[in-house]
């Protein structure tokens, strides 16, 4: 029962519209810094574009997708009208306001600090305030998810919370807590300096705060994708979910261990002790566990679908899968990209191996493969799956959707594989341009050209995606029926209370934050000698 379709569509359209613009900027960046184009002679333009690309892709786009999808899950999985619709719209408009407020100074070149902020670089205060508003808008969503679940529980005492909603609320709690790190950095450190109340900043502490957010934010981006794996894919391909409990355990594990691992982003930072780096490295290894559980469960669920379609033998079930179904295609591509990205991630989280790839294009390749590849391709799938229910019209042509997914998959590989390669060769990231005539880096020109071509393919795919969604609104009206989620092989009738509630897991998440982050933050915050002068962007 999808009642507030306008609300959900508004979130998705704002998300995908922003995504289209940011994708355009990304492709432009790849092009101008490649050997295909004579240098634009102005690195400021490059960093301006990079800041906009990162801010929209990292904060605005996935947050809006998670929110829109979350509202859709609340209404369709809980079978109840969304409570707090006005608040939901308020959250949406806060995000619109925040995004505009942040993007104006970026467009004017007053905040070219990249989306990771990088103090002591300090940009225009409106940029940071805009980002804070986006986060505050999303916190309204977090509260609404919690309230709606509470309302449902009151009317369904003791019943198992549907997996989609359980995962959705887990994702919202993860986001609420992980955003606190960047919020503390912005409110306590950066914004006072940006407003001129202070002129020095503890850049090391700021990096630790940001690492609190930076890794778990990836798992927040990942949540809609994992929810789609568990609750959309088996239903869309005509199968059953292999295990409902496995899904709950995977999301609980994400809630606990996605958060206290971010210091692996500061392996090269001198202000964090080696002991804490080791602890975070070990906990990072643990976060592979829910992903491996998910890969197992989803492969088993897909196999069930294959066998139900008459597949026989060890691999015979793969051939009979509904490969013409965009969801089937998307999940297969997503798993392949997740496999490569995850393998690279194991290298990044290893203290010693990371030193060889630290701050190189390898890292850029890695997070584009995970986020742009494995995650975003499932966002496409979610949109394709939900669109007929939101618009009341069928998608125009599934061939277009399949072509779009193929282009995205191929484009992402052509973009990120050469990036990994030049990273191993030592090419640093965050560089506006290179002189490929220099004999020392001219052998890398081919790989960089290749990845720029990949970016063009991605741009075509992204525009095709927007085209499909837009034209769907003009199709003839059809009744899509109720929006359903996949059914488990053994649908849960009773669930242990621990797998149906969050208190214990949220307590563990906060507890691990205290043990893994408490000391490094306390020691940096209490020392008087760790601040450096701020470097104001555009001060002259």
């Amino acid at each position, binding site marked *: 029962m999808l009642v507030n379709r306008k609300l959900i569509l508004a979130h998705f359209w704002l998300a995908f519209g922003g995504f289209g613009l940011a994708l355009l900027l990304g492709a432009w960046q790849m092009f101008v810094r490649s050997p295909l184009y004579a240098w634009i002679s102005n690195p400021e333009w490059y960093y301006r574009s990079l800041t906009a690309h990162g801010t929209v892709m990292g904060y605005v786009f996935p947050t809006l997708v998670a929110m829109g999808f979350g509202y859709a899950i609340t209404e369709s999985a809980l079978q109840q009208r969304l409570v707090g619709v006005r608040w939901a719209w308020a959250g949406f408009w806060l995000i619109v306001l925040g995004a505009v407020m942040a993007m104006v100074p970026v467009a004017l070149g007053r905040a070219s600090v990249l989306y990771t902020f990088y103090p002591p670089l300090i940009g225009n205060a409106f940029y940071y305030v805009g980002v804070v508003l986006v986060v505050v808008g999303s916190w309204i969503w977090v509260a609404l998810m919690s309230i709606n679940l509470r309302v449902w529980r009151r009317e369904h005492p003791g019943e198992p919370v549907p997996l989609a909603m359980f995962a959705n609320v887990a994702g919202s709690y993860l986001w609420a807590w992980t955003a606190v790190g960047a919020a503390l950095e912005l409110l306590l450190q950066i914004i006072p300096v940006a407003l001129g109340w202070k002129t020095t900043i503890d850049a090391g502490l700021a990096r630790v705060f940001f690492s609190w957010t930076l890794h778990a934010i990836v798992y927040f981006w990942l949540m809609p994708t994992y929810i789609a794996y568990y609750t959309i894919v088996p239903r869309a391909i005509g199968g059953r979910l292999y295990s409902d409990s496995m899904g709950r355990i995977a999301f609980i594990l994400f809630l606990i261990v996605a958060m206290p691992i971010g210091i692996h982003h500061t392996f090269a930072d001198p202000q964090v002790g080696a002991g804490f780096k080791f602890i975070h490295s070990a906990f990072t290894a643990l976060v592979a566990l829910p992903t491996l559980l998910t890969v197992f469960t989803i492969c088993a669920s897909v196999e069930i679908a294959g066998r139900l379609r008459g597949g026989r033998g060890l691999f015979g079930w793969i051939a009979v899968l509904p490969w013409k179904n965009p969801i089937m295609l998307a999940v297969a591509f997503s798993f392949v990209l997740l496999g490569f990205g995850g393998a690279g991630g194991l290298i990044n989280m290893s203290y010693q191996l990371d030193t060889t790839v630290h701050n190189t294009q390898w890292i850029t390749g890695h997070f584009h493969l995970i986020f742009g590849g494995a995650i975003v391709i499932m966002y496409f799938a979610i949109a394709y799956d939900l669109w007929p229910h939101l618009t009341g019209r069928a998608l125009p042509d599934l061939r277009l959707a399949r072509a779009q997914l193929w282009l995205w998959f191929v484009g992402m590989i052509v973009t990120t594989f050469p990036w990994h390669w030049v990273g191993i060769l030592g090419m640093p990231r965050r560089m506006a341009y290179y002189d490929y005539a220099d004999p*020392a880096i001219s052998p890398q020109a081919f790989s960089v050209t290749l990845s720029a071509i990949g970016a063009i393919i991605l741009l075509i795919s992204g525009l095709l995606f927007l085209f499909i969604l837009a034209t769907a609104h003009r199709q003839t009206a059809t009744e899509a029926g109720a929006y359903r989620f996949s059914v488990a092989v053994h649908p849960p009738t009773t669930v242990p*209370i621990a797998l149906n509630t969050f208190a214990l897991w949220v307590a563990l998440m906060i507890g691990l934050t205290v043990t893994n982050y408490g000391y490094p933050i306390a020691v940096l915050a209490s020392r008087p000698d760790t601040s450096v002068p701020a470097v104001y962007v555009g001060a002259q």
Partner: protein
Amino acid sequence: MSAREIFSSRNPYFAISVGVVAGIFVLTAVGGFIILPYAQPELKFAGIWDVICSAAGLPQRSASSDAVQPVRRLSEVVLTPTTLAHPTQESIGRGATLAQRCAICHGPTGVSRADSPNLAGQYGSVIYKELVDFRSGARTNAVMAPFAVNLTDREIADLAAYYAFLPRLPAYHPQQQLRKPRVVIYGAPIRGVAPCGSCHGSLDNKAGSPWLEGQSETYLKFQLHAFASGQRTNDISQQMRNIARAMTPQEIDEAAAYYASQPSEIVKATD
């Protein structure tokens, strides 16, 4: 089940999950704080507490040596967007009066005939930073220091406003314009040398970096050598010392000759 029952040792989910998480934390803590530091033979520790403090990242002053103090005074200038914003006509006028003293070397119109820098039209932030550095001793020069040492903050801001207000005039010794050498446009990425133009204009301009067009070739070369030898140390993050050290003598000559040959009217933050 109420909250009290969830958080009870009788609840197996509570007991197992808290036990496993605490166990992993303790194991990794022992690994990271005790075993791994001891596994590195080059690290010498006074005892187990020393090992733990070191792995926790607690900065420790070793008993045998005091903290290293810099040999020279370092620059302490902080520029914010408001430091020099919107100078008044009075400020520029006061700066003009004060600038009488500077004219003997820097020229009555801010254009030097004595291989001193041309100041007419230089960025206010640059005049401000160098004067503050001369005053504090972060930058030393037998001729400049006596002039700067008694200036007040307001006088320095006035001088910055005045010279920033003056129009840029053609250099005293214009030559044929040279082509941009590689080090100006591309730097030398392999040696970690950023392009000159990425801070000094044409590619980008960073706060506190002067434009260089039409400055004396002798002066530019002398300053680059002073940075390279460590004689001049008022670059806040050592950026000019690192760059000048990595530049070849030929690159220094090319960069100085190029900038000296450019008319100062063409100065722009970016092309």
